[in-house]
């Protein structure tokens, strides 16, 4: 069994992992990038639609094009890439971290390093997670699996389609299925507002005349061998109105009901998980509860755009490099979750520098105000035209705003949306 040593091991070769590895390499550290699939790029490979790169490259790219730009950068650098290689276990004892891996070509491998960056991404929630009752026929796919089958494998999973959940992948797939000649009968969403980006509602549903049923619960799946239809019922004032239930015939159901960070390896290494994000708790430098283990991208919290993923991952790479050089964060303040905020990542800020934060709200509101306070004192107040849970909010807390945070040992600043 081969055993190799690096300054840092990055787990996951999608957008986040590549961005983090590039930054570590740029700071002069030796890096291993481990990817379980045969090539780098992660889920971008199957996202053949455009809309990627507007922030990072200031142009509109497809998923594979976006991935290729990073792959090209990686291949131009002395980063050790292990594709087709699955990390089975991550241990973090006193000394080095060890990633135990297996691959068809090499057999078992042990990758030792001082720092680790977690970049494993997320998985789709499935039918069981949201407990849709009914029969268990063929023809029920998560939207991402259907996307893989259509865009990479070249198969049509079904002809008469209903999408349950209005997450972005479901919306993109509603359009994709329409393009390949399928009939998409409806998108059914339990919440009173869509879970996906507004631009996707417009471009993927409105432009194709696909009805969106908001505040509707799927109450039954029909069909013994193959799906024959689903039953949905409206929710009015919080109550399910079964008298108004109706059946939508279909041979295929796509599920787009949320994403969950894949933190099995992180837990295995003793990383503490935030139940609000299902990702790691980190300090202001994106370091988890295990010293030397950093997290970024969708394994930390689920992002809307890959552009935000690579921004965050680049930061994680730079912080990991600093940690390897012996420099941790300076004085930090804890972020307290205020009214109408679901989470803020990271959960701490460093007082002596500018901090980039990503947060999600719990409400839909026009002319909202994002407020950062310490005690009774407002540090920052920022107007937002429109906020909704599906659109991630970015916020930069500058060192000037933070300069007045006192010298308390457990200083906390509260972020709220009103």
């Amino acid at each position, binding site marked *: 069994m081969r055993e190799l040593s690096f300054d840092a091991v990055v787990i996951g070769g999608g957008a986040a992992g590549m961005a983090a590895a590039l930054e570590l390499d740029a700071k002069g550290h030796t890096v291993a990038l481990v990817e379980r699939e045969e090539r780098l790029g992660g889920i971008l490979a199957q996202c053949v639609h455009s809309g990627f790169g507007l922030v990072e490259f200031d142009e509109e790219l497809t998923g594979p094009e976006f991935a290729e730009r990073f792959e090209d950068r990686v291949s131009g650098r002395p980063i050790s890439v292990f594709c087709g290689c699955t990390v089975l276990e991550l241990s973090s004892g006193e000394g080095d971290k060890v990633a135990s891996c297996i*691959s*068809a070509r090499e057999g078992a491998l042990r990758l030792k390093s001082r720092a680790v960056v977690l970049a494993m991404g997320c998985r789709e929630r*499935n039918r*069981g997670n949201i407990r849709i*009752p009914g029969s268990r026929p063929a023809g029920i796919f998560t939207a991402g699996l259907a996307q893989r089958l259509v865009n990479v494998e070249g*198969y049509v999973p*079904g002809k008469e389609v209903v999408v349950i959940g209005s997450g972005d992948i479901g919306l993109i797939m509603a359009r994709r299925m329409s393009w*390949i000649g399928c009939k998409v009968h409806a998108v059914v969403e339990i919440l009173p507002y869509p879970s996906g980006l507004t631009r996707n509602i417009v471009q993927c549903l409105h432009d194709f005349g696909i009805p969106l049923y908001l505040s509707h619960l799927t109450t039954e799946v029909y069909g013994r061998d193959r799906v024959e239809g689903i039953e949905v019922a409206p929710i009015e004032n919080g109550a399910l109105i079964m008298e108004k239930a109706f059946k939508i015939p279909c041979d295929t159901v796509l599920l787009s009901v949320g994403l969950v960070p894949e933190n099995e390896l992180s*837990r295995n290494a003793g990383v503490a998980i935030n139940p609000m994000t299902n990702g790691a708790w980190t300090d202001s430098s994106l370091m988890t509860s295990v010293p030397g283990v950093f997290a970024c991208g969708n394994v930390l919290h689920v992002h809307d755009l890959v552009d935000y993923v690579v921004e965050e991952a680049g930061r994680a790479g730079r912080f990991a490099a600093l940690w390897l050089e012996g420099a941790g964060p300076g004085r930090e303040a804890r972020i307290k979750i205020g009214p109408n905020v679901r989470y803020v990542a990271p959960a701490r800020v460093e007082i002596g520098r500018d901090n980039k934060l990503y947060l999600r709200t719990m409400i839909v509101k026009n002319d909202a105000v994002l407020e950062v306070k310490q005690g009774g004192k407002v540090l920052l107040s920022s107007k937002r035209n429109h906020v909704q849970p599906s659109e991630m909010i970015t916020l930069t807390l500058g060192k000037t705003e933070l300069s007045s945070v006192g010298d308390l040992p457990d200083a906390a600043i509260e972020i709220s949306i009103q």
Partner: protein
Amino acid sequence: MEESFDVAIIGAGVCGANIARRLSAYELDVALVDKEADVSFGVSKANSGIVHGGFHHNRKLLKARLEIQGAMMFDRLKAELDFPFVRCGIVVVALHEDEMRAVEQLYAQGVENGVIGVEMCSRERMLDLEPKLSGDALGGLYAPGGGIVEPYRFVFSLVESATRNGVRLYTDWDLVSAAREGEAWSLRAADGRKMRARFAVNCGGLFADEISRIFGAEAYSIKGRKGEYYLLDKLTRARPDRVVFPVPTSLSKGMLVVPTVEGTVLLGPTASAVEDKGDSATTRERLETILRSARTMVPDISETDVITSFAGIRPTLGEDFYIDASAKVPAFIQVAGIQSPGLTASPAIGEYVKDLLKKVGLVLVEKADWDPAVPKAPRARDLSLFELDALAAEDGGYGEVVCRCERVTEAEIVAAIRRGHRTLDGIKYFTRAQMGRCQGGFCTYKILKILMRETGMPWSEIAKHGRGSTLLRGEL
């Protein structure tokens, strides 16, 4: 040319499989047929997977005697057949004073039945045996011999052992007619295939009444009773160390909390009569009932841990099993109404039916070269990194992880296909790929490609569980 057998077993569930394997030890030509695409696709695939403790039923019932006898056969079977089975013990929890009296009766019945090690437990003893129990527990019963088994894997191993010893397996073989011609039954399947058999055994499960009618034997009616289940992720905090039973009612043993051999937690089953014996749909109301009931015993259970739900149908007939030679037609054995504790009793049913066949004239001559063992199928999740490395050196497929949630490698998928599991569900039950927390979201397309490569099947034939359940509807 139609084939001739000494015995045809109709139905390859846990009873048919045990009988086939038992008969494979003798100089006999045996056919095992099933109408589904794979074995264990009926009642045997969706149940609680319990090897019962022998205290639930009175000894005057055949099913109680077979349960006790069958339960004792599992250790040897596991050693020979390599299927997941653990004697983790069973606790029955009393939450009220009157339930304690019911537990005392169960204890007395267990002692009378000769159950080894059964004990009455105080509250303290219960919580010591099973710390996940609710603090409301007043006491209960402990049966250390009770255990858990993966029922489909048990059937797969039995069938593999039977076929290695000469039994012929026919799947998608849906019996439509049976006629006595001379000294044999002439059997015909829906697709026109035919066979002859001197003796026939009805292990038709939910459809045993239908099989009996086709043979012109006794008229009876099997009623379906649906049981719905929830499955919880391995990471749940609510996993008990032992099987947790409530105090039974006159109708059923109640809804259990089962720590499965593979690390997940199973909650259920409910019990509701169904008209349509193919109706294994789950319902919102009953699934809520399961969560409520299970939480009274194990309060840590959370709906956020649910990874899937499913239902199985029990074949109910009378209070007892109906296992006997037909009084109406010759050379025909009825094995019907095998509901709980059927899985536990099944190895003993194999013995019992072998003896019945002997009684009605089948001559049994032991095979000199009968091999009770099946070769172990390596499972990456059970191996150390060193062991996996050694396997991967011989077959790179052991280095290719296909199902990340349950850690199943490509070589294991190939092994399942080569053993005849050619549907996505068959591969799932054999390997656990698609059975974990992502429920196939990441690995389904990979399995699809491996299936096509290994079998030469076109995409249009890849199915979830056999006819009508094909996965794809076109090619771009």
